[in-house]
């Protein structure tokens, strides 16, 4: 068969045309080129590129929308308004029964300190500054609404530490109420009629006056990170949730990482392939797909009802989320172990390394970056998990810092959930702020993962 004939046979509609053109066949550069559908192929590629870019743009658009809405809503919560005032610590308000004269040591008595009418002191100080008569009861009530109830605890601690200050005038900086905070941040719509908004016209004037005198400050809201839960938006913070989440992640890391990696190594490197290991494999894959709330129910019935561990404790949360994270880590670790080239194992075995030496000297180090990535993904998922924690009672108003994983605590996502459910706008703002904090921590974890991965890979 000649080459020319072969090509002619492949020509579309070749026969007659080729015959007409006679000698013009293979090897003739001026001759007709075969139509191998290049145009069509390039069109297909272009089309696919377009779909790809469209998909990315679509995804990015929603990501930006999401981030923008969270930041727009939550950014304000990182600043908090305080009022700085000279407050007269009047002896007749602090000690109306003149107890101190008889027994001066009672100033350190918590009961005595708790009975003092601190809001009255603050109201009077503010009224004086604003030129409001102390017997105008309606005005005094509105003044009282401008002060955060948390100022009470602050004053008590101050007096407890400085009893000699009784009878003097002290400059004190305390939190403004959530409504004043909102008004000062320009979040209140004053075109609404007075009874439809949280700040009255009179209060608005006072705010303007205070801010003109430089007594209102917006400063970075450290309380958001250091304060526990509170009924008042302006004084509630993420501290308990942060500590709870920290304990949980620590427990997940300490439990799920070693157990997961050891399981993966055993299944991948030691266990024989038989019906039993197949069954285990199927079950692990199934577990990875089990909805997280099921793990919550499991935790409730096993850890709390059966083992009698305390409710709301981060220990139980950590245990439940460890169970949830385990399959993820096992699967990731197995994939990473499988990806280690056979040639490396052969090299080690061929030198007389034992099976275990091969695994621990060569296979595991090479699999480490993959295991690490899987672990971080698992941890990130555990950090953001809410449903199982609701079931084990980590959704609660907790005003005390948890000192151990056995103390009641909440977790970041649960705190977001609780704040988002509050009616008050200031709580919702804090909810978005908590989301920002959560996202920041997740980003930090992922950056750490990338960094560690690079380090591991460079070492090899």
């Amino acid at each position: 068969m000649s080459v020319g004939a072969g090509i002619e046979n492949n020509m579309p509609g070749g026969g007659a045309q080729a015959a007409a053109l006679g000698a013009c066949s293979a090897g003739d550069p001026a001759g007709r080129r075969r139509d191998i559908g290049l145009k069509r192929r390039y069109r297909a590629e272009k089309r696919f590129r377009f779909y790809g870019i469209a998909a990315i743009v679509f995804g990015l658009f929603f990501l930006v929308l999401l981030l923008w809405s969270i930041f727009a809503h939550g950014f304000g919560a990182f600043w908090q308004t305080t009022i700085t005032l000279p407050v007269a610590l009047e002896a007749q308000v602090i000690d109306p029964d003149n107890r101190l004269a008889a027994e001066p040591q009672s100033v350190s008595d918590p009961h005595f300190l708790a009975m003092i009418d601190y809001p009255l002191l603050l109201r009077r100080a503010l009224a004086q500054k604003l030129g409001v008569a102390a017997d105008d009861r309606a005005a005094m009530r509105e003044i009282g609404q401008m002060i955060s109830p948390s100022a009470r605890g602050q004053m008590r601690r101050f007096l407890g530490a400085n009893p000699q200050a009784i009878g003097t005038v002290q400059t004190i900086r305390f939190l403004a109420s959530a409504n004043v905070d909102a008004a000062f941040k320009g979040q209140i719509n004053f075109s609404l009629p007075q009874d439809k908004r949280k700040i009255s016209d009179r209060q608005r004037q006072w705010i303007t006056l205070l801010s003109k005198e430089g007594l209102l400050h917006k400063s970075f809201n450290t309380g958001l990170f250091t304060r526990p839960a509170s009924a008042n938006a302006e004084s509630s913070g993420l501290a308990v949730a942060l500590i709870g989440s920290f304990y949980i992640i620590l427990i997940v890391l300490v439990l799920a990482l070693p157990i997961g990696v050891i399981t993966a190594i055993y299944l991948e490197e030691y266990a024989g392939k038989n019906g039993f290991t197949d069954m285990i494999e199927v079950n692990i894959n199934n577990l990875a797909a089990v909805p997280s709330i099921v793990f919550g129910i499991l935790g409730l019935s096993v850890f709390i009802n059966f083992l009698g561990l305390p409710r709301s404790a981060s220990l139980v949360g950590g245990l439940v989320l460890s169970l949830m994270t385990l399959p993820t880590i096992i699967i990731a670790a197995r994939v990473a172990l499988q990806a280690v080239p056979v040639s490396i194992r052969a090299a080690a075995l061929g030198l007389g390394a034992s099976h275990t030496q091969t695994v621990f000297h060569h296979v595991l180090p090479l699999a480490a970056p993959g295991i690490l990535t899987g672990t971080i993904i698992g941890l990130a998922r555990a950090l953001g998990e809410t449903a199982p924690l609701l079931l084990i009672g980590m959704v609660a108003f907790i005003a005390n810092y948890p000192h151990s994983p056995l103390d009641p605590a909440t977790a970041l996502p649960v705190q977001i959930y609780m704040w988002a459910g509050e009616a008050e706008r200031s709580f919702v703002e804090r909810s978005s702020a908590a989301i920002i904090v959560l996202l920041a921590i997740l980003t930090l974890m992922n950056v750490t993962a990338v960094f560690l991965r690079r380090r591991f890979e460079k070492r090899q």
Partner: protein
Amino acid sequence: MTAKYAAVKPKRVKMRGENVTVFYGNKQALHGVTLDIAANKVTALIGPSGCGKSTFLRCLNRMNDTIEGARVEGVITLDGEDIYAPDIDVVELRARVGMVFQRPNPFPKSIYDNVAYGPRIHGLTKNRAELDEIVEKSLKSAGLFDEVKDRLHDAGTGLSGGQQQRLCIARAIAVSPEVILMDEPCSALDPIATARIEELIDDLRKNYTIAIVTHSMQQAARVSQYTAMFHLGSLVEMGETKIIFTSPKERRTQDYITGRFG
């Protein structure tokens, strides 16, 4: 089959396979191969692809143990001792029978650590100085030392293919094996690197017994003293290389060597 091989008896036999049969699952890859590996000689295993050369080689240091479903029958001896006997430790066996693979497979570690790994796990040295010495000696015998002496702590994977293969040879000899098995050690290398390795094999013969699988007839002719021809899982014939290449007894050998099939 056994009868055909009996033509030559090497003077001193280092390893011997008797009636070696290998199954991968249900598939039989070797059919009763009987073959001697002569001490301090190079024995080449040749034959068309898939005929079981690698399989036989892997039996000699029990690397087949690591393959799932592989089953070895027959007797293989090292210095007269059955290496599949229950009291033989496979780790010790592999320290005595080293292996160099078809594709260079250095560990993703430094050049130094690659060579030092074997001596380290077998506890062959008492201190760092001794280890340094072994590493240097092994790299020298593999003809690599001069090229890498200034970068012993750079990654072994950063070397060229030929250098990597010599590194693998250095790594294998660092544990002072008695036998070195090489499975197509030059198939990924250019002619110059190949020539260096062939020289090296000739040098190594003084101290080691070598079995090498190769697809290059010229290579087999150049480096080996004995040649074994495999076909379809059986040994076709075995003899002194110069005889096999000049006057083989079997037609299949003749055809294969002259390139008529394979």
